Structures are given as C-alpha cells and as structure tokens.
C-alpha cells in the first residue's frame, strides 16, 4: 500500500515530523517497506554551463564540452547539438539519470573514442516541449547563479510503501492508516468533509440481487450520473494517481481509483447507455463467457457472482469489469456501483479463473459494508465537479443489514496475555479512537466493532488492538524460566546427531540437498517405491520427491567432478519418501565416495576406492553408535543400484529381516547413465528407522571387568573352501568351537590360483587361544586345534590345507 505523506495529512491533523510518522507506523504494526522520494531521478538534472566546446577529433558533428556542474571539477560531455557552444547555460544529466522522454538510463560511455560523462539535454528529452533541434538554452538572467542546482524545482514528495498484513483491509486506504495513527497519538483524525451534493431524481436503471444459494453479493448501491464530459484528469488528480505508481486513464476511472485508494472503497463505473435495461446481480451458469477489461475472455463456472443485464454478463462482481459496458472518453451517462461482495466468494472465483486485480485483493480481505454511500457520494461529487453532469438519488439494494458485531471484553484478559497493565480509561480511549463503540459495565466492556474491521471477532483481537497501539515496548522482558518437562533429545534424535558426526568424522563432507529430485535420476534408485509427483514443481527437473538419497548425491557428485575434483566423499542425512502421506518417510544417511585412495601419494600405493572402504565406514559408524561388531551380520544382497557382486547389506542380528544398512560399488550401468567419470564409485546407506534402540543404557552396558593373564597361543590355519563360501560363516563356525578359549579370529589371506582347484579358494586364519583359568598345555592346544579343524571340515565341507 503506497501513499504520500501529503495525502495522509488530508486525513490526519498532526504536528509530528514525517520521520516520526513513519516510525510510528512500524510501531503499530503497519510495516514500512520503504520510504523514499517519489521521483529522485529528477534530482539528477542540474543547471550547467559549458566552459569550452571543442571539435571531436573523429566526428565532424560532435563536440567535446567541458561542463561546469557546480562542483570542483568540470565534466567532459560529448555532445552532438549544433548550439552547444562556450558559455551556454543548459541542463546536464549525469550517469545514472533516466531520460524522461525515452526512459533510457545514462551510463559513462565512449563516443567515437572519447569518454563522455553524462549528457546535455534537449527540451524534448526533458518532456518540456517538442523542441529537439538542440540542447536546452537557459536564460543567463535567470540561471547564471544557479549552476549545479536541481533544474526541476518540484518539491519531491516522499512516498511511503506499507506492507499491509491480510487482517487489515481498512489500512488499504489512506484514511484507515490515518485513523490508526491518530489512535496511537500521532495526531487527530480529520472529519470527512460532507458537502451536500445535489441529487436529482431517482436512479432509473433497475437493480436486483437474486436470492439464491452462494449469492456472493449482499449490498449493491448505485447512482446515475448523466450528461458528463469524460476527459483527462486535472493535474492534482493525475499527480495523486501517479504518485502511487499507477497510470492516469480518464477522469472517471481516475476518480474511482482515487476513492478506492483514499477510503479503500472500490467502485465501478459502467457506461449506462450500454446496459441492456437492468442490472441483475446473480450467480453465473456454467459455460457463460464474457470479455473482461484485461482483454481476456473468461469462461465461467457455476455460482460465480456476476453483474449482468438482460443480454448477459457485464462483469465479475468485485473482481473485474467487462469491456461491453466500460467507460470511454466519450461516455455520456454513467452508472456508478458501490457494493459489498463476500470475501469467500471473491476468493473462490478469482482462484478458479486465476484473476488477480486490485479490487479482488481488497474484496477478499473484506471491504467496509458501511462505506457504500460514502463511496458513492465522494465519487459522484468529484465526477460532477470535474466532468459535470447530474447526479441521481442513490439506489441501495441489500440482502444483509451488516449490523455491527458485538464483543464482551473482560479487561483483565489484557494483563493476562501481555503481562502488563493499562488503565481502563486508556483502554477505552484507544478503542474509541479506533472506531469502537464502547460502554463500560463493571469489569467488562461492551464493544461494537467498526464495520471496517472484519478481522475483529473475539476478545483476543481486542487485546492485540490495545497492545499494538499502546506499544510493544511496554512488554516486560522476563527472565526465561528453565524448568524442563522432557529430555532435550529422545533416543532416536540422539542417534541422528551421533551418526551424523560419526560419518563426517570419517572424511565425508555433509551436504543438504532438496527433498525433491529429477524423476529421471530418481528412477535409477527408486526400486519398488512409489514415485511421488509434485503437482506444481519449481522446475521440471525437480518434479518428484526423492525415493533415495543417492539421487541428489550422484547428481551433485558429478557436478563436483566436473569442477575438477576427483576424490570426493559426500553424505547427507535426511528424509526419503516411501509414499505421499504424512509420515510415510524414512530418515536415511546416504554417503558416496569417488576416485582413489592415496592418489599421488609419495609413500602409499594409490588404488581406486572399493567396497571395503565403505564397509569399514558403515561398520565403524554402527560400532561407534554402540552396536556390537560381533552381532552385526552381513549378507550379499543389495538394492539393484549397487554392483550385484560388490555390495552387501548389514543386519543388527543374524535373525533380523530388515537390513539397517547397505554398502558397495554403485552399479556400473548407473555410473554410465549418469555419465560419471571416476576411477571408483562406492556408497553406503544407513536406515535410522531400522536401527533398533540399544535397550540397555550405557551405564548398564559395562559388565564386570574380567581378564586373563595366562599365556596366549596363536595358531594359523588355511582352509580350502568353495569359491562362494563366505568368510563370515567360517569365522562363525570357528568361534562356535569354544567361546571360552577362542579369543580372536583373523583372516589374513585369501588365495585363489595355482595349487588350488578352480572352484575353490584358500582362506588363511589366525586364531588366538587363551584360557582364563590356567596356562594351556601342549596337549590342550592340540585338542582345540583338532576340534577347530574337524568342526570346520564337517560344518562347511572345507579341507584343511596341508
């Protein structure tokens, strides 16, 4: 909402400085977006004097002028005007100025090799006259002492731009703003001058509001003004319209706009001669069409509030008028409309038809139903003043009386909510100034709500009115009280934060990417999850919610590879979506790693990243989070976007059905499809929702400290097993032989090739054996050795390698 301070002062009697008023606006909840000079561009045009004018070396018709603009140094301007000569007084526009005639912004530029700082202007360029032959010549007598001063003398008006919240339609008019300021003590609200306009005869066009369900209009006021001469608006009106950034059109249109901006009272003017017999305000029928003032044809649905005549739809009430009965410069007789349309109806219609107009914006927030006649008389008065004509009596059709709402307000509520007290009399004054009718009854106030405040419905709204006018600075700053109701984080949240930092500590950079992604990439990773489309995506390549974190990670990994990075480790912790209902999402860590380990390292051999790099990261992360390595179980199953032979899944327990993590090489087909060029691409995912809570608390997790000082013995074994036999199973078999004696099992070699059959491999294992009761004798060791070998051979079909 824009207005000038001068306009505000037409409604507000105040001695407060402009800056003070602007500050006050913010204090009472009318947020000032900007406060600046109406047309600061005009200040760029200065009275100047040409000191010298020399021939341009490269162009016959150009001159290089040294110009005095009232500053220490003269400026060089290249000028093509034949009258640019020494000692001429003229108008100079510096770089950054916008030339009024063509709206071109000046820059410092080279003209045929000579730099020109700004321009000397012709009268035509300044919109002063059509004279474009040469630059402006100013009379020495008038201007010789004004070099460097602004050429345009209009006092530059300051324009305030407010950001009006949707609850305050009353402040979409200058008067409403003035009323709020007055209530806040910034002056006195002036009475609206009510000139008794001469009204003759009745309004002869019949108006009716049909009685039907969902009728969107409750009041339709109108008057006829006959024998008008529509014309250009007078200067004051034009300036008002322009000052708010709008375009003057004709007196009649400008007047209706002026009344709207002044009182937030939208009006509509019809060319009365084009109305077919009568006005019927009714619901539209599906399929009806009309040509609107934005030059579009709209096809209407059922139950939209239309203003129609015998021939059809004239306009959408409170949204947009139609071309058929629009006023033009030669319009002779007009019908002026001042109505109330129900916000819900306005909103529904404009949404369905996708129309956004100033009138719609106002009506959907709620127009004062009490301003129907005021609007008509204000506009009629101006029209007859400017365009002449005879004004008819007002015709007001009503289906709703729009009586004032009432609220009982218990004054104690104010202190209860705000924490501070305001004297009852002050409360009454504030409310009265805001337009409330107040009568005091003991502890309660009986309030009648002004018709321009549709936002005020219940007592809490009254609290807000008082506290904002009184000032938020009166609210005390109380020490925060520290009582805790619950632990800050629950277990799952603790796990989230722990895992996040655990993964990062392994060299991964955390990233945050959109929850949505490109469906084409998502398809590579979505497995059997449902694709969740966004109806109105921000762009076509962000059209679905992600089914996997890898969609965005691979996308951005590629971008970083393209930036020249090679060895990249990225991870994100966040949601993936299983389906489109609230809660059908999982929290997942996705991590991805590309390139090589130890690239160009002087003492370590470089190699591409591989599945065991990510296996280490995922296992270590789980172990750090408190899951025992011994219970973790690995299977060689993984989603299809992993390499089928180089990926696996992790289970918290052998018997679990749901894996908690996947790890492995990314499928080569996907690497190819995404055009990712790197030596190796591996990743892992951890599903936080599948991580069961560690049931025991840390303080109960530590069993008694038991240890053995008896001698340890190490034994090495090599077993020949089937090629697809899993090392994990071998370890499990061995550890099951004697849980008390076998302390550790390490695989130190895997061998395939010479001396081993093609379908077999050799696994070499180191076993540490130690008793907690005695030093083991050779015979004891021999016994356990044999038991290990026989158990492995029976359970796995392996053969000890001799």
């Amino acid at each position, binding site marked *: 909402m824009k207005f000038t301070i001068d306009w505000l002062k037409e409604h507000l009697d105040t001695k407060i400085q402009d800056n003070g008023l602007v500050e006050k606006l913010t204090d009472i909840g009318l947020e000032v977006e900007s406060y600046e000079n109406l047309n600061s561009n005009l200040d760029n045009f200065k009275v100047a004097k040409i000191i010298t004018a020399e021939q341009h070396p490269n162009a016959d018709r150009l001159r290089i002028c040294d110009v005095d603009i009232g500053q220490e140094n003269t400026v060089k301007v290249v000028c093509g005007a034949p009258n640019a000569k020494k000692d001429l007084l003229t108008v100079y526009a510096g770089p950054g100025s916008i030339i009024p005639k063509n709206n071109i912004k000046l820059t410092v530029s080279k003209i045929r090799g000579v730099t020109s700082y700004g321009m000397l202007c012709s009268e035509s360029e300044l919109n002063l006259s059509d004279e474009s032959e040469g630059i402006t010549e100013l009379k020495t007598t008038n201007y010789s002492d004004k070099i460097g001063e602004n050429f345009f003398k209009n006092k530059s008006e300051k324009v305030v731009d407010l950001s009006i919240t949707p609850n305050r339609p009353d402040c979409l008019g200058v008067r409403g703003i003035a009323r709020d300021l007055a209530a806040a003590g910034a002056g006195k609200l002036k009475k609206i001058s009510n000139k008794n306009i001469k009204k003759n005869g009745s309004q002869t066009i019949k108006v009716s509001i049909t009685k039907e369900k969902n009728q969107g209009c409750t009041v339709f006021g109108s008057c006829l003004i006959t024998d008008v001469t529509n014309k250009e608006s007078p200067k004051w009106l034009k300036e008002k319209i322009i000052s708010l950034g709008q375009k003057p059109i004709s007196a009649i249109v400008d007047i209706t706009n002026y009344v709207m901006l002044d009182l937030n009272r939208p009006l509509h003017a019809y060319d009365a001669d084009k109305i077919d017999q009568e006005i019927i305000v009714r619901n539209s029928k599906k399929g009806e069409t009309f040509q609107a003032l934005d030059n579009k044809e709209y096809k209407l649905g059922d139950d939209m509030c239309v203003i129609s005549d015998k021939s059809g739809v004239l306009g959408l009430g409170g949204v947009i008028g139609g071309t058929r009965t629009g006023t033009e410069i030669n319009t002779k007789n007009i019908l002026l409309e001042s109505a109330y349309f129900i916000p819900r109806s306005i909103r529904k219609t404009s949404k369905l038809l996708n129309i956004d107009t100033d009138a719609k914006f106002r009506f959907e927030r709620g127009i004062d139903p009490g301003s129907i006649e005021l609007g008509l008389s204000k506009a009629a008065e101006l029209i007859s003043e400017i365009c002449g004509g005879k004004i008819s009596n007002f015709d007001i059709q009503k289906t709703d009386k729009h009586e004032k709402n009432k609220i009982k307000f218990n004054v104690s509520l104010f202190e209860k909510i705000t924490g501070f007290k305001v004297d009852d009399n002050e409360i009454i004054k504030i409310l009265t100034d805001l337009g409330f009718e107040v009568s005091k009854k003991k502890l309660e106030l009986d309030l009648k709500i002004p018709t321009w405040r549709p936002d005020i419905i*219940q007592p809490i709204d009254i609290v807000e009115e008082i*506290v904002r006018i009184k000032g938020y600075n009166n609210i*005390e700053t109380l020490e*925060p009280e520290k009582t805790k109701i619950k632990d800050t984080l629950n277990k799952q949240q603790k796990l989230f934060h722990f895992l996040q930092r655990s993964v990062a500590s392994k060299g991964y*950079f955390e990233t945050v990417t*959109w929850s949505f992604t490109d469906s084409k990439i998502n398809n590579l990773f979505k497995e059997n999850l449902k694709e969740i489309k966004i*109806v109105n995506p921000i762009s076509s390549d962000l059209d679905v919610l992600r089914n996997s974190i890898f969609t965005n990670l691979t996308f951005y990994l590629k971008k970083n590879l393209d*930036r020249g990075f090679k060895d990249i480790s990225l991870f994100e912790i966040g949601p993936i979506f299983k389906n*489109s209902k609230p809660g059908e999402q999982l929290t997942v860590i996705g991590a991805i790693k590309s390139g090589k380990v130890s690239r160009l390292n*002087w003492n370590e051999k470089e190699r591409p990243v591989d599945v065991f790099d990510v296996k280490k990261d995922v296992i270590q992360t789980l172990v750090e989070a408190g899951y025992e390595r011994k219970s973790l179980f690995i299977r060689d199953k993984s989603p299809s976007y992993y390499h089928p032979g180089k990926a696996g899944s992790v289970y918290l327990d052998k018997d679990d059905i749901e894996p908690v993590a996947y790890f492995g090489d990314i499928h080569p087909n996907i690497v190819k499809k995404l055009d990712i060029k790197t030596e190796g691409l591996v990743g892992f995912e951890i599903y936080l929702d599948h991580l069961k809570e560690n049931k025991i608390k840390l303080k109960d997790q530590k069993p008694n400290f038991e240890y053995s000082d008896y001698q340890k013995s190490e034994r090495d074994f090599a077993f020949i097993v089937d090629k697809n036999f899993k090392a994990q199973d071998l370890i499990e078999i061995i550890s099951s032989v004697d849980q008390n004696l076998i302390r550790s099992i390490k695989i130190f070699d895997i061998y395939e090739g010479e001396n081993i059959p093609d379908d077999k491999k050799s696994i070499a294992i180191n076993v540490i054996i130690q008793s907690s009761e005695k030093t083991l004798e050779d015979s004891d060791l021999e016994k356990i050795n044999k038991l290990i070998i026989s158990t492995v051979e029976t359970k796995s079909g392996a053969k000890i390698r001799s």
Partner: protein
Amino acid sequence: MSDIKKIKDEYLNKLDNDLNIESVNQIKTQLFGKNGQISNFFKTLGSLPTDDRKTFASELNSIKDELQEKINSKLREIETKEINSKLVNEKVDVTLPEREINQGKIHPVSQVIDEISSIFSEIGFSVEEGPDIENEHYNFTALNTPDNHPARDMHDTFYLDNNKELLLRTHTSPVQVRTMLNGKPPFKIIAPGRTYRSDSDQTHSPMFHQVEGLHIDKNINMGHLKGCLNYFIKSFFEVDKIKMRFRPSHFPFTEPSAEVDIGYEIKDGKIVIGEGDKWLEILGCGMVHPNVLKNVKVNPDKYQGYAFGIGIDRLGMLKYGINDLRAFFETDYRWLNHFGFDPLDVPSNYRGLSR
C-alpha cells in the same frame, strides 16, 4: 697380589680402548669365563691360609666388581654409540607430507540446528519433529488459516495431489499441532526442520529450514516470549547485549503477533549484529491463537502461551557471514569445505557454542 693388580690395570687399560661388543665380550670371557683369569684366582682361594684368604678374597672381590662395572659401562657406551651412529643413517625428511588425513565437515545448517537445540535445552525446551509431507489440515486449517483465508497466499505451496490435500509443509508450525494433539499441557518444545515453498530467487530457495518454538502453560505471557527470544538471540550470536525490537504483525495462528528485528551495522563490508541503527527482521512470533488451542483440544481459558518461527538458514548466514542462501543447497565441495564445521566441534552448553 701384585699379579691381580697388574691384571686389573692391564684390563682397565684395554677397556679404555675403542672396542666393539665382540672384543668386550672376549675380555669378559678372558676374565670371568670358566678359565678366566679372575675366575682362576677365585679357584686358588681354597688353598690359601685362612688369614690371607680373607684379605685376598676381599681384594679379589673388589677388583672383580671394578672390572665388571667397567665392562658394563663399556658395553653401554658401545650400545649408545651404535644406536647413535644408526640414528644418523636413519634420518628421514620429516617435512615430507603426512599420510592422508580425511577431515570431514558438518554442514552449517546442521551446526546451527545443534547450536539452537543446545541453547533451548538450557532453558528447558525439548526437540520435536514432524513429517515433511503434511496434509492441508495440519499445515493450514488447524492453524487458524482456513481455505478462504488470504494468508494462504503468503505461502507458495507445493502440492502432491490435485485436490490440494497433501502438500510439503510450508512451515514447521504443524509440529505444534501434532505435539499438542498427542500430549497434554504444559508444552515446551522446539521443532527444527525442512520447510518448502515454491519460490526461488536470490533470497528464496524452494527448500529452507525453520525452527518452531512453543511454550504453553497456565500463565505464560508476552513477557516470557520476549525474555525467551532475547535470551536466545544473545546466546546464539554470542554477544552480551542485543538491540532488539518487537513490532506488531499478523500471523493467523498467533494473536497478538509480532515480528522481531535485531539491530545491526555494516563494518568493513561485514554485518555486525547487535548494535547499529539498521534493523533486520529475523523471526515471527506471538501468543498462540485461542482457535489453534481449541483445534488441538487444549482449553484456552486454562492454558496460554507463545510460539515462534525462525529461519535457520538465515541465522546461519548472519552468524557466519554467508551471503548466498542458494549456495547452502548446491553441494559445491569448495563451499562445504569453507563453511563446514569440524565434526568434533559439537555445540554444547558447557564448552560453548562455537570454537
């Protein structure tokens, strides 16, 4: 007698020479071996008269000790020398690079969320979460923003179905609704998380982060709200004093509502928070609207309190001097490295928010 002294002197001299371990060991054998010279003297002890034996034995023992000590110190000397000479040859260039270090990074958004949680934990708030996909009811209607309310236009919403039933939450406020529906007052929670609006330019991105705050009890008023936010802002920006301004505003789900500005100034092209004569809007807040309380089955005559919503990304930008919001979500390795935090730098009450 003089014989042993001679032997002693002879060997002490010998041991003063530059010897290697083998020759020292040889000397040791020559003296103390089975047929060593000193050993042999001990053998003769038995044949000496008692008086002489005593004197001689004591002398012999002291010479033996002396020689043995000499041999041991010689051995130590040689070992030290050998280690030293070996060390000279073993010298490496320690200025060569260490083995690869892999320093990971925590994203600024995560760090700021941890800072916020830490601060609010101190004054008794717990952390709640809600789903990213919401239904229209929780995101709008329950928050006193019915379908026909123009305030809905302030949120450019992403929808997941044509009936506009399912959407990506446009703010973290639905967590208020969920929390209150699932529990009984009092409530004292914050809810950080992802939020979405179909808006994208220099200062808006289609996804961003908010933290919601909610404190409902029997007598929580606007003074508590002011105190809580004042405490938070001071703690977050790690300053002792903060210039703060509460100004009336409007949100459908709070009443009275306020927007909060903090004072700042630009010094050497950098923004300095807390002082100065410029105002920067950083959050919206207010007393929870009675309609909202009714919608979540909390009696507004008994309970009241405040709620607030803060843009997390924006707070991070201000605190850590990040200019471009969109860069948060672009995964530029250089940016993550530059603005990211060390994973061990965990914000906490006792050791301070940031290093």
